[in-house]
């Protein structure tokens, strides 16, 4: 009994390590075969449209609502200390440093990441990937790498839009509805947010999240068993794994970027 359990534990660990190795190799292969994505940039642009542009609505709407909630909650808290005028800087800092990159990446993982996994998994299940290989065309270069770079490029842009819409949402609730002074809202924001320290760091975060989410989504799709259950399982794993990875990486990056404050 104990031996059985030990054996199955060992087996699981070995296969997990093997899978990580396989995924890392896959990631290196994407980078190695990335030339086509830039030489024939229209391939990447097509994917930018389907993963980036098609995610715009969810990102813009979610950003606005998150900003509005921040405006409400921030006002309630700041009022206790008579610091309502700092609302602008609170909203902007929370968004630019944390909520923008993290929430945009979580939404991107469930909107575009899952779609990528399902698409690649189905291409594999319907033998489109094999057909491409038989035509002497490398599917990593032609199908996978353009999607990877499209994800990496669109993630920081989506995160910036998320933050911008959030600031707008905070403004609508704080200034227009509650009546915080408009001048202090914007001037506190301008004074409180540092370009290098806050905005650039936030952008770096979303770039890292973009790499992680897209790589996970593509790997899961490419590795999915070519059946209906296989593809649905892979899609679920993409969302779960990339969400956890985003939150874990966020902690690590925050610890490095904003330590000693």
């Amino acid at each position, binding site marked *: 009994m104990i031996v059985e359990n030990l054996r199955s534990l060992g087996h699981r660990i070995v296969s997990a390590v093997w899978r990580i190795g396989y995924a890392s190799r896959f990631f290196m292969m994407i980078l190695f075969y990335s030339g086509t994505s830039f030489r024939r940039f229209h391939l990447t642009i097509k994917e930018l449209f389907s993963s980036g542009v098609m995610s715009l609505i969810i990102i813009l709407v979610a950003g606005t609502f998150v900003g509005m909630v921040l405006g409400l909650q921030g006002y309630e808290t700041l009022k206790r200390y008579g610091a309502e005028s700092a609302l602008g800087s609170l909203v902007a800092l929370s968004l630019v440093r944390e909520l923008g990159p993290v929430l945009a990446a979580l939404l991107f993982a469930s909107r575009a990441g899952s779609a990528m996994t399902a*698409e690649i998994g*189905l*291409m594999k299940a*319907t*033998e*489109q990937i*094999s*057909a491409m*290989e*038989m*035509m*002497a*065309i490398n599917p990593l270069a*032609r199908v996978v790498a353009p999607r990877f770079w499209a994800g990496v490029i669109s993630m920081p842009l989506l995160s910036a839009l998320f933050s911008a819409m959030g600031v707008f949402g905070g403004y609508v609730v704080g200034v227009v509805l509650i009546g915080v002074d408009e001048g202090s809202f914007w001037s506190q924001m301008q004074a409180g947010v540092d370009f290098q320290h806050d905005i650039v760091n936030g952008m770096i975060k979303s770039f890292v999240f973009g790499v992680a989410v897209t790589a996970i989504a593509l790997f899961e799709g490419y590795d999915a068993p070519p059946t209906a259950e296989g593809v649905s399982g892979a899609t679920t794993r993409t969302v779960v794994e990339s969400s956890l990875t985003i939150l874990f990486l966020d902690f690590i990056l925050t610890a490095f970027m904003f330590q000693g404050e």
Partner: protein
Amino acid sequence: MSSQALVEIRDVNFAYDSRPILKGVNLTFPKGKVIAVMGGSGCGKTTLLQLIGGALKPSSGYVKVDGQVIHELDHKGLYDMRRRMGMLFQFGALFTDMSVYDNVAFQMREHTDLPEEIIRDLVLMKLHAVGLRGTHNLMPAELSGGMARRVALARTVALDPMLIMYDEPFAGLDPISLTVVGNLIRRLNDALGATSVVVTHDVQESLKIVDYIYFIADGVVVAEGTPAEISSSDKPFVHQFVHGEMDGPVPFHYPCGDYRQDLNLRPER
């Protein structure tokens, strides 16, 4: 015959993990011919095509195409070889995110520097050859199964391959589409001067169009011959297969224990 052979398969063994699929098969596909490889489901027919295309490596033996041993080629050599092969997958494997036109143009755009006007003419010619020039604006999802198979056929021959492989080209087609696809396989092969390998279990359709037939069962070649020889063969397996009989060398029942015992019946007195 071997001097004009385009594909030679010699003593090929292949196993998935420890399950043997092919056990020392020998096949020869002469240039210009249409060859059928037949056998029941799961007998290793598709594996054979994957070995020819270099997607799998034989455990022993070799597959030679146009004088070159496939599993000894490096990545570039294999890709150069594949450019001269075409493969029609079971359900066509059309790229679902591209129109019919773009599907047929795909390899021309990837592998040649032809200007778009010439590609346009070539695509329309290929589609005309399969009778579907009128569909070039449609998406694969808008095609019927038979039409999708024909578009895939046009895509397969886009670069005039020397070897065309068909994986179950007749699966799931209505009788009209079946005849159309069968005739196209023959006509395209003769028009292009290519060699075709048709992996199938559709006996009646294949007997009409092919030059030579190999039967595979349990990983070995059990019979071979021209359509006339096969039709009149008295080998039990071939007879059962050609005439679609329920029982014979391929038993109806999956191997199992005694029926009465399974039903907990007492033995007959």
